[in-house]
């Protein structure tokens, strides 16, 4: 090989390198699997309820759950029980026993100064005598109630005693209707009444009043005011006497205010403030039936009045969108549908209100049906009256300063339930079309561990501006946990589910704008009810088996 050929060979080698291949743009193409766990959600039932924005539930130490609603019922104004003691005036006269006839018998005319002890020997002067005369006045108060008593805190009883006797007269006033608070004895006073008379002012705040006083031969009554006036007349030698002398007693009861009045308030109506109660819990469920095994309504009433109050429950209604159900309560101790709230039996300004608790449950009411109606609202048109059990008479009182009436309606619905295709629905926006752009197919793997004795089926519906894209997926998300004889779950139940989204599904899902999720819950069909505990948990492990194409 000569030098020229060798040079040609070298030149060819130098220039033969063809790298035009790299003129083309390189594009990354790849398809492969991505099998990986995404993560887990660990929900207790309490968490689920909070997610559903249901907050009206409580949980005891053992995890037993119940929905609790409390509504207060207060008494209305009920002013009719506050009986006013109106002003009262009355008049009593005790005339001199020295009538004209006696003057005639004494052979003197009125006026006359007694100068002789005998009008004839051995015949005493009839003008000389001692005599005690009592007059009783029974005055009826015009009151709105039949009262038997009252305790004053203000007011006065002014008694004006006038006398035209020329001699001083001892007058005794006894008011059996007016009882001293300090000694619990009737008011009584004795006064020497001159011709100038005398005024007595009795502050009523020191007294109670006994409206039952009556004439001695009559039974006790109500609204009566009794006063006895006794004058002691003693005519002696030297006294000037007349035949028209008398003692006048005028009494004015004014400005009386009472701390308490006693009486029989019969079965007068008692008003309550009306309420309604919204039950958010049931708003979360769409379709299906739910039966509560042991719901309760407890009425805890605090009665600061001196009379029992009957609450008529017949106007408490469960209301849902389509129907209404009245509460029924069968109470052995009182009238049907009536809750008897005892009052304070003995008045004391510091007497505590009487607490009465009544529980309505499946044994004495229709509360199970009441709540199984899935009410969205409970209307509380509560009416009532005093003395629901009429004792004839009823020993009642009304204190002007009272603690009133308060009642709490505590609804306790334990989650001991039977679920039949109860649906929970939710919707979420979806704008992740780009994120699934590279997916060829996608298998969503759900491994759940469930200690809730409810099974759950999920239906996922993909929508484009409200139009179903026909790629809905329905699958068993979790099976119900087995339960023990007490209705509580015994252990976690495992479920494994794979949901496959084909390439065609994914193409449609890319157009989705929203996802509707419907969860259908069922308790085991063979069980009447199961107990749901707050600690019941649902562990959802989410993983994926995806094929990706880049």
């Amino acid at each position: 090989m000569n030098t020229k050929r060798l040079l040609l060979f070298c030149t060819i080698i130098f220039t033969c390198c063809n790298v035009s291949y790299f003129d083309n743009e390189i594009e990354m193409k790849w398809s492969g699997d991505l099998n990986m766990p995404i993560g887990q959600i660990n929900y207790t039932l309490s968490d689920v309820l909070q997610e559903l924005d249901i907050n009206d539930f409580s949980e005891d130490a053992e995890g037993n759950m119940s929905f609790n609603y409390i509504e207060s019922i207060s008494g209305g104004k009920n002013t009719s029980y506050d009986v006013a003691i109106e002003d009262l005036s009355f008049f009593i006269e005790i005339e001199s026993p020295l009538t004209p006839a006696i003057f005639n018998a004494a052979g003197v005319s009125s006026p006359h100064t007694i100068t002789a002890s005998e009008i004839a020997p051995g015949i005493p002067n009839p003008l000389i005598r001692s005599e005690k005369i009592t007059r009783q006045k029974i005055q009826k108060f015009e009151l709105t109630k039949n009262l038997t008593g009252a305790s004053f805190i203000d007011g006065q009883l002014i008694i004006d005693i006038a006398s035209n006797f020329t001699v001083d007269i001892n007058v005794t006033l006894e008011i059996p209707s007016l009882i001293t608070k300090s000694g619990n004895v009737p008011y009584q006073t004795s006064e020497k009444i001159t011709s100038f008379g005398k005024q007595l002012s009795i502050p009523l705040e020191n007294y109670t009043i006994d409206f039952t006083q009556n004439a001695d031969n009559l039974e006790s009554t109500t609204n009566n005011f009794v006063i006895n006036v006794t004058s002691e007349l003693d005519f002696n030698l030297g006294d000037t006497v007349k035949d028209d002398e008398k003692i006048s007693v005028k009494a004015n009861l004014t400005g009386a205010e009472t701390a308490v009045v006693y009486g029989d308030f019969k079965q007068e109506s008692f008003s309550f403030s009306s309420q309604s109660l919204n039950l958010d819990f049931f708003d979360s469920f769409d379709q299906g039936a739910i039966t509560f095994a042991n719901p309760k309504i407890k009425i805890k009433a605090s009665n600061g009045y001196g009379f029992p109050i009957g609450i008529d429950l017949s106007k408490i209604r469960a209301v849902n969108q389509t129907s209404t159900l009245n509460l029924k309560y069968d109470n052995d101790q009182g009238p049907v549908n009536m809750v008897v709230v005892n009052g304070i039996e003995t008045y004391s300004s510091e007497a505590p209100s009487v607490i009465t608790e009544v529980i309505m449950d499946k044994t004495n009411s229709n509360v199970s049906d009441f709540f199984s109606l899935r009410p969205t609202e409970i209307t509380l048109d509560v009416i009532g009256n005093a003395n629901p059990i009429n004792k004839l008479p009823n020993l009642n009182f009304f204190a002007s300063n009272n603690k009133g009436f308060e009642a709490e309606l505590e609804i306790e619905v334990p989650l001991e339930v039977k679920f039949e295709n109860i649906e929970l629905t939710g919707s979420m926006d979806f704008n992740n079309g780009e994120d699934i752009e590279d997916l060829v197919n996608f298998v969503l793997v759900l491994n759940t561990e469930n200690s809730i004795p409810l099974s759950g089926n999920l239906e996922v519906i993909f929508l484009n501006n409200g139009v179903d894209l026909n790629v809905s997926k329905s699958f068993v998300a979790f099976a119900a946990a087995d339960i023990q004889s007490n209705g509580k779950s015994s252990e976690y139940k495992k479920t494994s589910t794979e949901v496959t989204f084909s390439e065609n599904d994914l193409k449609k899902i890319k157009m989705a704008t929203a996802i509707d999720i419907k969860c259908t819950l069922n308790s085991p069909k063979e069980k009447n009810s199961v107990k749901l505990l707050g600690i019941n948990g649902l562990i959802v492990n989410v993983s994926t088996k995806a094929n990706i194409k880049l």
Partner: protein
Amino acid sequence: MKINTFTLIAILLFTINSAKAQNTLSFYNLGDYVAQTQNVSAVYLPKNNFTLGLPGIGFNVNNPFKLNEFLIQNNTTNKLETNFDNLLLNSKALNQSTMQINASLFMLAFKTKKGSISLFANSKLVNNIQYTDQFIEVAANGINNFDLKNNQLNTTGYHEIGLGITQQFLKNKLAIGLRLKYLNGVAHASLKNNASLGLDIDETTQNWNIMAANASLRTSGLSNEDTSYFTGNNGFGMDLGATYQVSEKWSIALSVNDIGTIHWSENNTSYNIKDTEGTVYNGVDLNTDGSIQNEIERAINTVFKATETVENFSTKLTSNTYFSTKYYASKKNVFTALFANRAVFGASVTNYALGYNRLHKKATYGLLTSINPQDKKVKIGGNAAVNLGAFQMYVATDNFLNAFKKVEEVSQSSLSLGINLTF
């Protein structure tokens, strides 16, 4: 002795079954005609008094696959599309990929009375990758169960500037060459020895059970920080060589190249996965206000206990050894039997070749057969160096056929070429 060229080719093809070839083997046979052969043999007894080397290039690529088996041209878009499936199809249980690029930036060689002195500057890239079919399976099929072992990576780019001396002894029968080199590391990436990473995916839950040992990647100079041409990664290296003229017809030669170390102290980052015999990743808490994607990334980092550390380290150069014997059939015809050895990932890669060169005063050319011990494919290479006045042109390849093929159609290729000024 006059040997017909075609006869020589026939002889070489006949002997190919027992011969193995290595890249740069053919270049090695240019010997004293080309000053740049000092890069493969330190002994240089120049034919010319003075050589000024202009920038030249030499590269060797040994891949288990052709480029167009991985980057497949789409006839519609004309784009080159990656195809890992094809890569997997063409993978063996254990695959090795090597690439060596030697850019000869400067060469100045003087002939001395008893040998030569040379000054040189090269930029080198040595890239050795060993990967298993499981590794490619992950790349091709995605995240499934895998157990990645025996995968290795060692890539080093560096500059070398040095001085070479060749001196003859024993009445010129013995020639010893020594090259001392200052090394300056540009970039490096290497996996720790015996690195392994395994993933076992639970069939039901898809939970990952991760096993890792020695999973650490040391890098230097790969960050985006601006670096100057020379770095603070300094090192020292040397090449040794010797030839001995046994008789008028026979000579033997031995060279050991690239003995040296680079200390990497600048722009270093080590990416580490903590050793674990089984760490479970079961996802993240989905009940989060943050981005689930971010949570997953954070959790996976935590599970893998991935850390980035900055630490200095030293690496040895990939040394190679050549041993050859030449038979001078005549003054113009020489046969060479060549044994080469290269240490890669602690294993010795041995190669054999038989070559023939025609020797002229101003030129040489020859043929060489070699076989790669891994794929056992026969390759025929050639070399030539010719002086035309003051210009010397040289070229060598270990695979003639591939030299004329398109770059995407070859998996193994070597080419060394350059131009010198010789006087």
